[in-house]
């Protein structure tokens, strides 16, 4: 078999595998476009006979999705801003030195990273309610997400700072920059892309966060889209086309960002996760 034919065969095979793997995603889009009766047809149709685009407008209006997505955005932006402010400097220092204290710091970071949210929510909820923080539920969720996700951000961004040559910073210091000046003018711009990709990853996670929001935000006006989806799916629901339309509007922006930045996200993820 020639090289060319082999490549084509492998490509076809891998496309088939990707198609099988991504079938759930396809099924979400197809179901969202089906009518109420077509959705329950046997055998199920794998292509909508007449696409019901009006479902999207109907679900957007009736479920008040604008409000839900706005709350998700507020929470995700708040968490990312706080994480980037606190985590970037921390990652920089942990990347710059090699000693026992850095090792201890990294170990602590990892320990904080692995704590499951569903286990931490009990003490956080009780503690926050005693401090009165639950009066500001979205802020409470932002703080909780920050504590949960900052360690991951630090690990990812630290890998980026490791790739910035130390000599550049030293040269800036010799030229009369202060530490803070060298950090802001030399190191930070060089690490900008890595920080941005990590921030986007954290944003996508925070955008879909569920445990903390479900437990701490009682007021429906302030709930994010994940909680909204959860309350949409009652135990005996039959509105699957509407639910899938909701899910479509919720994830499509995330998927679009992912497909655009796929290469960077994958390489950022692999550089941080195993080191």
């Amino acid at each position: 078999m020639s090289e060319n034919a082999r490549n084509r065969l492998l490509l076809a095979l891998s496309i088939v595998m990707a198609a099988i793997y991504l079938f759930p995603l396809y099924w979400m889009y197809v179901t969202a476009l089906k009518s109420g009766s077509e959705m329950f047809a046997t055998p199920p149709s794998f292509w909508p006979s007449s696409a019901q685009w009006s479902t999207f407008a109907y679900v957007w209006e009736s479920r008040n999705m604008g409000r839900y997505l706005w709350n998700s955005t507020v929470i995700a932006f708040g968490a990312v801003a706080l994480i980037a402010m606190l985590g970037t400097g921390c990652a920089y220092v942990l990347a710059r030195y090699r000693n026992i204290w850095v090792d201890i710091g990294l170990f602590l970071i990892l320990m904080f990273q692995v704590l499951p949210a569903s286990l931490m929510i009990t003490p956080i909820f009780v503690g926050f309610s005693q401090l009165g923080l639950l009066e500001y539920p979205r802020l409470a969720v932002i703080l909780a997400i920050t504590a949960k996700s900052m360690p991951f951000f630090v690990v990812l961004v630290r890998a980026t700072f490791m790739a910035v040559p130390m000599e550049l910073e030293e040269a800036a210091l010799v030229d009369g920059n202060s530490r803070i000046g060298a950090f802001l003018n030399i190191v930070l711009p060089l690490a900008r892309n890595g920080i941005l990709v990590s921030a986007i990853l954290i944003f996508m996670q925070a955008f879909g966060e569920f445990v903390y929001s479900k437990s701490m935000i009682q007021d429906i006006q302030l709930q994010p889209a994940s909680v909204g989806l959860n309350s949409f799916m009652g135990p005996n629901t039959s509105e699957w086309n509407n639910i899938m339309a909701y899910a479509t509007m919720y994830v499509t922006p995330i998927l679009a960002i992912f497909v655009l930045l796929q290469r960077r996200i994958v390489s950022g993820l692999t550089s941080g996760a195993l080191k």
Partner: protein
Amino acid sequence: MKRVFSSITDGRGFDLVLVGVPFTFLLALSGLPLLYNILMSFQEVDMFSLGSVIRPFVGFRNYLDLFTQPETVSILKNTIVFVVGSITGQFLVGFALALFFWINFPGASWLRGLFLVSWVMPGLVVGAIWNWILSGDFGVLNFLLQQTGLMSSNIFWRSDPNFSLWAVILANIWLGTSFNMILLATGLSAIPADLYEAAEMDGANAWQRFWTITLPMMRSTIGAIIALGLIFTLQQFDLFAAITDGGPNNSSNVAQYWAWDLSFRQYDFGKGATISVIMTVFVMFAATVYVRSTRHEVRG
């Protein structure tokens, strides 16, 4: 005052501030809750005593109560099945895919990256989609299984106690496979190619090369990935909320979901804290294994 300020902008103080502030934050919002959790596991905490720190001290009663409750054993068993089933599935499928995409052909790395879509999606959306796919009467999985002749009647994945846990495991395998694959692919690409060339010259076939080179060279990567898998499966919550809600009759309940359920549905925060303490010990153990298996690799 001036000396302190100049140290912060241009000296040791700069590093200390950069590292000190986030660590203070983390200790306050993760470290303290951890300790508070332990304290609460020895107290009786309900809706009425929520506001006070000094609550009735009950010693080990929460722990003893939990282990005499009838559902405890089955929930712990579910947790083990969930963890082992998920990790095995994710790892095997992920490894097979990683090995396939290891063959170099144009488009391989782009298509491989596409799989990570499952990882960036909100867990609740993944759960909603699988909930619909696994639906008993109209689910597409049942249809496909019957078409291919693998089974003759519909399985009620979500409401049959024999299958409800496996419904969540199936969704979790789908969710975690891509992450396993990407990390395994990174490990594979780090194996020096000349090892394979040498083995090929010595006449080793593909099967022998896999067992004598690939697996031994991947040992620490595989250890790290299994530890990470343990950490991730013990964090899984959204899929339970979206697919089975722990039911029917606790048949798909696992420890991390139960802890939340005790606290936020039954308002028994003391017991919720007790399970959390026990599970946290397991998670920290997994994290230590992870650190040990990555330590031998060249860092940075």
